[in-house]
């Protein structure tokens, strides 16, 4: 389908300008898409590895925790965990991946306890089970990876969104706008040529008529 226009020379020039602009935009967007996909693939591989690792570790920690819960009375377990020795504070900065802004997490542990060398265990070892220790140790060792996973996964999600948008635009330009412009340009050129030929034949005809009269 072509765009409805008046077949004039001015219109033709305008369309040609639009076509070059569309082609330039198309090329740029295509480059953007390719680079986005490259970045995306790097990140998504990392995401997959991290997630597999984290899930494995977390499952282990949880199963140990479940054991601890089973061997300890619920009240004393809750009591043991009531006052954590650490709090997490999170600061968020932006990272720019191909003008997709993704959050970057900077987190810091702060000790809440007044003791100087506070351990990760908020309880004494006297009335807790060893499984609880293991579970908490695993959890606190997995925390950096958990935060990294959060960061990477967010970036992957945002990138996927952006890639989809970019791809739509590329396709709209490539398969809709540019072919239509080209077709319209062709239509106008043909129309113009046709009227030129028409004018020429008319001139020749008139010349014949004039000559016959003399």
């Amino acid at each position, binding site marked *: 389908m072509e765009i409805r226009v008046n077949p004039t020379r001015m219109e033709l020039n305008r369309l040609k300008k639009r076509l070059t602009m569309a082609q330039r935009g198309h090329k740029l967007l295509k480059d953007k898409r390719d680079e986005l996909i490259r970045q*995306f693939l790097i990140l998504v591989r990392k*995401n997959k590895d991290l997630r597999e690792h984290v899930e494995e570790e977390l499952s282990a920690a*949880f199963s140990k925790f479940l054991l601890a819960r089973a061997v300890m009375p619920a009240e004393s377990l809750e009591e043991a965990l009531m006052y954590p020795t650490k709090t997490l504070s999170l600061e*968020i900065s932006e990272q720019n991946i191909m003008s997709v802004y*993704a*959050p970057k997490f900077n987190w810091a542990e702060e000790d809440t306890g007044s003791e100087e060398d506070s351990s990760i265990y908020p309880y004494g070892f006297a009335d807790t089970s060893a499984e609880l220790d293991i579970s*908490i140790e695993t959890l606190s060792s997995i925390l950096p990876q958990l935060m990294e996973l959060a960061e990477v*996964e967010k970036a992957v999600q945002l990138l996927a969104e952006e890639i989809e948008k970019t791809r739509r635009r590329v396709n709209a330009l490539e398969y809709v706008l540019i072919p239509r412009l080209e077709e319209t340009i062709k239509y106008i050129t043909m129309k113009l040529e046709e009227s030129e030929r028409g004018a020429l034949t008319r001139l020749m005809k008139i010349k014949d008529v004039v000559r016959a009269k003399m």
Partner: protein
Amino acid sequence: MSTYKIAVIGDKDSILGFKTIGVETFPVTSSEAALSSLKKLVSENYGVIFITEELARELEDIINDLNKRYLPAVVLIPNSKGTLGIGIQQIKKNVEKAIGADILFRKEG
């Protein structure tokens, strides 16, 4: 730069341990309760929200919405019964969305 908080939503058995490492815990038992605490956390100053897959399965819509936003980051974690594979499934979906075909997990599936 303001500081953000980290939260975890899940069943009590799974998330109690998170308390010791300084993550705020929000134990819930039903998906309705999870939904309301998730909404509450989103409106407050939380940067990262961990949620167990079991609950996330029923809150798919809102989590998908949140995933498009800059913050917070909603991260699925397995619960004490083990992983359901939703987290991995999500990565797979992202790949399909971005590239159109699943090129990452082809060998397994």
